[in-house]
């Protein structure tokens, strides 16, 4: 099936899932390929390292990339970050022998849709990949709980929450968080240990990027961004 067959239409039930398998161990790749192909999934390419995975994902634009964590050169987390930044429609599911929740959380922060420990059994993999393709998260219940705990720690005013992709720099988000707490320019400068001029410059940049004219409008826009009401392109275009 050619790449063009998929363009302009969403996934259908009869569309075979197109997957790239990434693992530095050729035996592991072969085992994964056999399991996936037996389940009717098309393995369109295999990569033995992070760099190759990025190149193949950019070229083939698969539905899902099954990614190993520890590899020579570019590791799975770094490769995931690049793949999801360059091709946001491609879903990445990390499949690793690690059961570390810290690694799992970092994998998700890097842009992965899933984090699976190899101990879950390969039989579950085909279904998990189809779920990822359909926009579902593929994570363990324990990791889900960690995510919920993280959400509960967020302040009621949303300070500290950021959209995954945003034209604002982390420092500009810090300034915006403090604006949302109705802090003055001097107070922001004290809190962030910056000069007043630097804070003014950050605020100016925030207003420009959000396409607004006042601090109040910026606070409103921040709320919309956090709740996902504003599309990324709208802000970037401003």
């Amino acid at each position, binding site marked *: 099936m050619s790449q063009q067959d998929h363009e302009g239409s969403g996934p259908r039930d009869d569309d075979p899932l197109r997957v790239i398998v990434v693992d*530095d*161990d050729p*035996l592991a790749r072969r085992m994964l390929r056999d399991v996936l192909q037996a389940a009717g999934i098309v393995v369109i390419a295999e990569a033995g390292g992070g760099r190759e995975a990025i190149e193949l994902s950019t070229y083939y634009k698969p539905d899902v990339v099954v990614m190993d*964590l*520890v*590899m*020579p*050169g570019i*590791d*799975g*987390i*770094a490769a995931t*970050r690049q793949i999801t930044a360059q091709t946001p429609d491609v879903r990445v599911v990390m499949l*690793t*022998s*690690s059961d*570390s929740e*810290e*690694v799992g959380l*970092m*994998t998700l*922060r*890097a842009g992965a849709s899933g984090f699976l420990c190899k101990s879950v059994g390969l039989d579950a993999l085909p279904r998990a990949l189809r779920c990822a393709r359909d926009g579902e998260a593929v994570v363990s219940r324990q990791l889900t709980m960690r995510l919920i705990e993280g959400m509960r720690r967020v302040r009621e005013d949303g300070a500290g929450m950021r959209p995954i992709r945003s034209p604002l*720099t*982390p*420092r500009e988000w810090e300034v915006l968080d403090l604006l949302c707490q109705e802090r003055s320019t001097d107070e922001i400068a004290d809190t962030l240990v910056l000069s007043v001029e630097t804070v003014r410059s950050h605020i100016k940049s925030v207003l420009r990027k959000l396409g607004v004219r006042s601090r109040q409008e910026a606070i409103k826009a921040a709320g919309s961004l956090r709740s996902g009401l504003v599309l990324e392109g709208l802000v970037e275009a401003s």
Partner: protein
Amino acid sequence: MSSSAPAFNGAEADLDAYAAQAAHQLGEAVALLRGYLALLEPRGEQDAELGNVVRGMSAGAERAQRFVDDLLDLAASGRDALAVGPVPLGEALGAARIRLAADLRETGAELRSKPLPVVRGDRELIVRLLCHLVRAGLAAGATVIEVEGVHEDGFVRVEVRDDGAPASGNAVGAADPVGAPDPFAPFARARGRGPLVGAGVGLTVSRRIVELHGGSIALDGDDAGGSVAAFTLPAED
């Protein structure tokens, strides 16, 4: 055509298993560290001091990743199987040059060769072999690394000569009268120091690759004060 790796003895199998486990433990930690550093990078661009910290930690993480790469390579070399075909050594050296481009650029060392013969072997393994030997020269502080190859009784004898810190003379399997450590032993002390020194398994992997092809390898000091790694591979008919 393909053939399996020769069975390693128990001690080497244990070593490979340990290398694989260590690579995954260390690799996981390095991946996590690099993940956090990537999150800090944008802030480092705005904060000079933080930027310096991030750069320093990233350099440390890269050195740790080099260890991971070496340990993965050692573990993989115990299960390598040959996919044999004609391999033009000049082309293989070109591929090695591309993989080592960053290290060559960083050190400013020159990698040069005369026209090289064609051998019969596994291209990927031969590229890895050349990478290890060239990198050993770079780690030893070489400014020039020269690769030569000549036909010799159905084999091609290849010499990788560098002007880095000298190697103490020895040949694989030869009795060593003064009891100097075998540089082909895993985790042997490297010839140099610095960021390009890996886990000390490059020569071990090199020996495995050469022996898998039915060849031999030796490392010795050369007359000019540098080192020469000489190995043989089957010549292509």
